[in-house]
């Protein structure tokens, strides 16, 4: 930055502070040379400041400087990036030469909410994963960068849908019904928790290549500074900034190939024909003569590419980094694709002898998604003996269709004919101003963050007149055009005061935060098109047009404070307090107080521990307590409101149609979930950190759980209402061990393993007078549930009948009078647990739960010469899965269901021979423990090529390479109710990186 623009910034700053700066007149001039102590090299661009003023200068190419020191100034401060600051008394000298000692104080700094602390000063459970240790490969969603890397953080990849965000659970989540997603904070700007029309994961706009580090605030003492949004942990994402020095240019390009991992679990044509012959020979006439694998018809091998370019650098007082990225990825489902163009700009300028730091960051992305029509379930059901095409069927564009309004539709027709695209433009920007008042009140600084997040999306869906689903329902063609504008404004401001007294160090922070979130999503729908010629471009061709809108807003206002206190580098205290107000709750429950406190003891600093220094390189004991909240329940839920009927739901009085009004169900006393938690941790390192680790125990109690429950009929205005129902306890132990197994010049190997044990139990259920709460809706029938919330049990424990088995080990099939009582009923095939002679809901029994008891993560990083090999293994133990695909599809009566068609059945029907669906049989419940090789990556570093400064490295990565599990369904990972065959992909990536 040149002098002119510095002046402009200076003036801008003056405007901001509404105050003039007093300049003092120069009296003396001091000159000198700054060098590196070890090498003796001159330090170029080091800054020199006359303490107490804004007068300063920088060193030239030879490390020389000359500064006119204003009158009254007695000290000069010297600073240089990467070196500790030095302050020298002038004492009348006119020449001051200094040799800097590098690195010694370059301690690792970890971002925490509203600031950063030195790693040694951490008191809470905080894990940082940086660029060095990120997962590699075709990563669209940033959270996949840390999958398997942090103990207690379970990151489950979404389906094979490109761009679909993973599910992230930190320490198992704290809620039953409200969101369990952590809060994401990007460069200080907290994101809204939900997605937007036309897009996929809320983090997708961020190019993983632009991320410098991700920090997970796991325990409440760390997360409580985010108050009502901290209960599920916080993930702080810091984007890359420039570094002072010559411009550095990096370019990376890669190509990916994704293939499908799942297999078709319903019958093939031959087997299906045999089953129909056996089970319902009268239906044979409805079968076709083809052999179609509908699953294969809808899946493909997906290809993708990614290119990223970044340029960064900076001078003494300013740094910059700009980057641009392009990614395009096809899904393994035909018709699913995502494309992203992203730009990122980070700029930092130090002014007034580093007293003012101005940071600006803009992240922008354009994401274009193509969505598949979601017919993969239909593909499983469709009769495999029918052919895809029927050239004579011109009304349906030459696809085979039954033409009956209740029959299933040809899924290939949907994939080929329906277009559904989404475009989003996302911009997240923030301006940070930090001013240090060192010369007036040393240690006092002020920071303000102004941020915005704009997400504008549009989706266009078009269904031509030849699409059978609509045509048989009396429509010809349909379109939907939707737009969505989501905006968020943020203003954070806080003062920090740090002071040392003797061996005590303290810093105190107080602040205020305002953030609002607005959403508006108008859309139009058109039906009965006179032509297919215009797609969504000409709504006037629709006979019926409907308009919709959705407008919601919410607001959070907070005051917060934090105290860090360090005694003699041995005892560390962090205490924080946040008061949050949320528009989502009624006046009496609107404000919440979220305190926290944590203590740490660095044992090795004690005199008595002096002897341990040879063995231990680090030993820190931490204890923390905090209260956090959860407010992710949607808006206006506490309010009594009347909802107007639309034009199609009126009621006739005489010859008039009256628009009706309905009072909606609500709970005016709704309040936030509050999680209070304890955390005890031990950080240790042996043998100069060759072996290091963290052991933690936590216990969390979430009170006032929010849940939508069946209220006793008559106590509200609907059958279900969102209310506070009780409490649950969640506790666990986490251990992370990192060992440097080999550390030689040519070969090194680092192994990291993490294991966490977790346990969750409902400790109170009282919100509605309920004893138990049924939950866990399944596919099959309407309103059937297979899970229960019950006092003393893990949430979402399965609630099923105990299946009886025959001597051949098969489950007893329905429709046979096994117990010879003359009646065919559930008594024949399920255990009558209470012995009352009937099998009914009294005989359902509580079972295992979908939540894993143990989470495992293992990473290895090996370097041999220029080769680098990394792998990430991830596993869950004790998670149970209800195979809904089998329970819904695995019965022979499906063949007999429709009037003029037959439905395919799940292969399990051949074994069980169930006639009617046995949704509530525990036969379908299986242990879903698994071990998955998430990521395997090999790279080779060519070093500088052709004696230039350019570096080249190439790499290859495989993702989701194998899974070990006894689960018989498609994939044991998920919600615990496996009813979607949506495939996970196996992805291979080949890429190269060039740096200058």
């Amino acid at each position: 930055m040149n002098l002119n623009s510095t002046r402009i910034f200076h003036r801008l700053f003056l405007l901001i502070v509404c105050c003039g700066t007093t300049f003092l007149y120069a009296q003396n001039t001091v000159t000198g040379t700054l060098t590196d102590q070890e090498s003796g090299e001159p330090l170029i661009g080091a800054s020199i400041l006359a303490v107490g003023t804004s007068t300063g200068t920088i060193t030239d190419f030879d490390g020389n400087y000359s500064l006119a020191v204003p009158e009254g100034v007695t000290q000069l401060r010297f600073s240089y990036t990467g070196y500790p600051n030095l302050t020298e008394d002038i004492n009348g000298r006119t020449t001051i030469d200094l040799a800097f000692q590098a690195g010694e104080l370059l301690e690792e700094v970890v971002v925490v909410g509203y600031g950063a602390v030195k790693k040694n000063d951490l008191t809470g459970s905080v894990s940082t994963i940086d660029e060095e240790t990120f997962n590699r490969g075709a990563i669209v969603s940033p959270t996949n960068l840390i999958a398997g890397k942090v103990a207690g953080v379970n990151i489950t990849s979404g389906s094979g849908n490109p761009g679909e965000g993973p599910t992230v659970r930190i320490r198992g989540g704290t809620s039953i019904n409200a969101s369990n997603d952590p809060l994401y904070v990007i460069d200080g700007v907290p994101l809204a928790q939900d997605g937007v029309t036309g897009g996929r994961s809320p983090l997708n706009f961020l190019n993983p290549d632009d991320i410098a580090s991700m920090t997970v605030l796991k325990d409440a003492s760390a997360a409580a500074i985010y108050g009502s949004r901290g209960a599920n942990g916080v993930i702080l994402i810091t984007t890359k900034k420039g570094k002072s020095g010559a411009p550095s240019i990096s370019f990376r390009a890669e190509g990916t190939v994704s293939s499908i991992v799942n297999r078709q679990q319903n019958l093939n044509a031959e087997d299906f024909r045999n089953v129909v012959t056996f089970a319902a020979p009268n239906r044979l006439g409805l079968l076709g003569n083809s052999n179609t694998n509908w699953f294969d018809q809808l899946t493909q091998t997906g290809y993708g590419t990614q290119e990223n370019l970044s340029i960064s650098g900076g001078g003494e007082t300013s740094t910059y980094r700009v980057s641009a990225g392009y990614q395009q990825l096809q899904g393994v489902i035909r018709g699913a694709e995502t494309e992203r163009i992203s730009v990122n700009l980070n700029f930092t300028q130090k002014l007034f002898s580093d007293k003012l730091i101005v940071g600006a960051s803009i992240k922008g992305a354009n994401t274009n998604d193509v969505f598949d029509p979601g017919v993969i379930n239909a593909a499983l059901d469709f009769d495999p003996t029918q052919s895809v095409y029927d050239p004579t069927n011109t009304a349906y564009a030459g696809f085979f269709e039954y033409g009956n309004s209740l029959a299933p539709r040809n899924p290939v027709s949907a994939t080929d004919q329906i277009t559904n695209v989404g475009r989003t433009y996302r911009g997240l920007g923030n301006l940070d101003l930090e001013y240090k008042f060192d010369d007036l009140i040393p240690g006092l600084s002020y920071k303000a963050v102004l941020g915005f997040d704009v997400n504008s999306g549009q989706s266009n869906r078009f269904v031509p007149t030849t699409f059978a689903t609509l045509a048989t329902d009396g429509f010809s063609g349909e379109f939907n055009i939707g737009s969505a504008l989501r905006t968020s404004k943020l203003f954070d401001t806080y003062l920090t005061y740090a002071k040392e007294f003797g061996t005590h160090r303290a810093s105190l922070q107080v602040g205020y935060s305002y953030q609002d979130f607005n959403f508006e999503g108008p859309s139009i729908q058109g039906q009965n098109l006179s032509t297919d010629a215009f797609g969504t471009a000409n709504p006037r061709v629709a006979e019926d047009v409907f308009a919709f809108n959705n407008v919601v807003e919410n607001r959070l206002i907070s005051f917060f404070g934090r105290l860090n206190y360090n005694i003699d580098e041995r005892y560390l205290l962090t205490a924080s307090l946040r008061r949050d107000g949320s528009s989502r709750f009624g006046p009496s429950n609107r404000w919440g107080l979220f305190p926290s406190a944590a203590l740490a003891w660095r044992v090795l600093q004690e005199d008595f521990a002096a002897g341990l220094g040879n063995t231990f390189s680090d030993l820190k004991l931490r204890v923390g307590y905090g209260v956090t909240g959860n407010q992710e329940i949607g808006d206006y839920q506490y309010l009594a409101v009347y909802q107007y009927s639309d034009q199609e739901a009126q009621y006739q009085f005489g010859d008039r149609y009256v628009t009706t009004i309905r009072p909606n169900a609500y709970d005016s006393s709704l309040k936030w979930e509050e999680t209070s938690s304890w955390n005890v941790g031990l950080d240790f390192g042996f043998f100069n950190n060759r072996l290091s680790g963290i052991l933690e125990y936590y216990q969390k109690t979430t009170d006032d759980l929010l849940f939508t429950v069946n209220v006793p009929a008559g106590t509200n205005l609907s059958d279900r209402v969102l209310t506070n129902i009780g409490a649950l306890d969640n506790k666990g132990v986490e251990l992370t061990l990192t060992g440097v197994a080999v550390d030689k010049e040519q070969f090194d190997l680092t192994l990291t393993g993490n294991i966490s044990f977790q346990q969750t139990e409902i400790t109170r259920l009282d919100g509605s007078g309920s004893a138990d709460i049924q939950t866990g809706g399944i596919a099959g029938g309407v309103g059937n549930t297979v899970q229960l919330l019950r006092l003393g049990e893990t949430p979402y424990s399965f609630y099923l009948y105990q299946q009886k088995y025959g001597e051949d080990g098969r489950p007893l099939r329905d429709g046979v009078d096994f117990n010879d009582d003359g009646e065919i009923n559930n008594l024949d095939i399920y255990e009558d647990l209470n012995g009352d002679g009937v099998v009914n809901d009294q005989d359902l029994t509580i079972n295992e739960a979908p939540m894993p008891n143990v989470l495992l993560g293992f990473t290895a990083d090996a370097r041999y010469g220029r080769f680098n090999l990394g792998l990430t293994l991830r596993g869950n133990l004790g998670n149970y899965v209800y195979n809904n695909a089998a329970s819904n599809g695995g019965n022979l009566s499906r063949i007999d269901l429709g009037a003029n068609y037959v439905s395919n059945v799940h292969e399990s029907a051949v074994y069980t021979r169930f006639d009617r669906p046995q949704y509530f049989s525990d036969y379908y419940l299986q242990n879903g423990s698994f071990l998955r090789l998430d990521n395997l990556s090999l790279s080779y570093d060519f070093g500088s090529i052709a004696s230039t400064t350019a570096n080249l490295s190439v790499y290859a990565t495989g993702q989701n390479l194998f899974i070990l599990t006894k689960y018989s369904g498609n994939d044991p990972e998920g919600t615990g109710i496996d009813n979607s065959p949506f495939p996970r992909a196996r992805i291979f990536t080949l890429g190269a990186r060039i740096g200058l």
Partner: protein
Amino acid sequence: MQYRALLLLFLGLGFTACTDLELLPQDKADPNAVLSQEENYESFLARIYSGLAVTGQEGPAGASDIQSLDEGFSNYLRQYWQLQELPTESSVIAWGDAGLPELIYQSWTSDNQFIRAMYYRIFFQVSQANEFLRETTTPKLDERGIREGFRPTVEGFRAEARFLRALSYWHAIDMFGDVIFYTEEDALGGEPPLVRSRAEVFDFLIAELQAIEEQLPAIGAAEYGRVDRGALYMLQAKLFQNAEVYAGQDRHADALAALEQIIGSKAYSLEENYADLFKADNHTSPELIWAIPFDGRFTQGFGGLTYLTHAPVGGSMDPADYGIDGGWFGLRATKDLVNLFPDVTGEVDERALFYTDGQTLEIDNISEFSQGYAVDKYTNVTSDGVAGSDPRFPDTDYPMFRLGDVYLMYAEEVIRGGGGSRDRAVELINELRARAYNNNVGDITDGDLSLDFILAERGREVYWEAQRRTDRIRFGQFSTNGVWPWKGGVPEGRTTSKIYNLYPIPSSELLSNPNLSQNEGY
């Protein structure tokens, strides 16, 4: 100076910062704003009525009233119809949805989703009516500045709300026996309601109907779609007629008195053609005492008449003949319904509305639509043969109460000793039969007048009108007596246990209301 200014700035921001957290939804309305406008009282009342027809605030589906079930399935009339007709000889349905065949077999359990839907629909209606009554008390009207001149209108609305609540409580005790009981006196969000016996609720209903009689419009005076004393007398008659079942009381004289009020008023007359009662222009019928209106444009849904016009169509039936977009291949009649008629074509008795082309009389497999005759009683075509306004959603209205039923009830009450005149009973029945036969060939004489005849004649006149289960229970011919195809889950039919005279309380409700206990046998 700098720091002071900054501090001021900071503190200023801190203290003057926006602390307004009162954000209201922009697409829904605040109760006080809504109910200070007179026209909205009618809109609120209309919502209690529409609870019988639609399923949410968006047609055909959306913003559902109840959430624990598929919205379209859960429609009040659809479930009321299914629970009254499927367990009888009148119908079978082809679909395999969990719990649906069990309704045909009389083998349902407390997990049955259709029973659950009915239960929550009933109490949704009661809750909405109670809320209307809470919000229209004199203090509330005063508070909202409703003028005196509008108060009598509100009084009338309150009577209609109480009628609709009574209707749903009748359905509740008819199907579930002892039920939870709560009124506008119970606060919203309070303790789970207590249980009252079937007889206690029966007594409440009798008293309630008496209390609102004077406040309802005179017989025949109500606007179409709304209730007057005609509907009130009919509901009284239904309750009294079944009083032995509900409360162990002989109230046949009271039933007869209520029926006399309707017949004596001459407010209604029989529709000329039987089939026209169930067509798209049936709102013009002079026979309807109270109908639930449906409309292709303004009152859409997947229950009610949409269900009744679509579910019975399939096979070789041409949907266009019925004014609909496509059949649902579901409902057919068992042969026991068909055999009530002298011939299947309708040539003799025009009430026999069967479609037989490509259909068999016998049903070996209930999921095969071609087995069992289809019934084309409800259609979306006017009496002039013109299709309704939208083939997806019929214009046909549901005849909740009609004069033909009054005549049959009169005759039955005469036989059961409620008084009245046997001659009059024979005369009224012959009016119905003359309409059906288009001559006097079908006329009966006093000697024919028996309870067995009445049960059969009700089978011919009001079949598929959601009466059959209640009728059969009153005649002792539902569970332990009476055999028809697929009763008990076997093709030839068999008797079942008397526990099926009541439906079970849904298990979800038992879990959430500790005051409830399950009906015997479930």
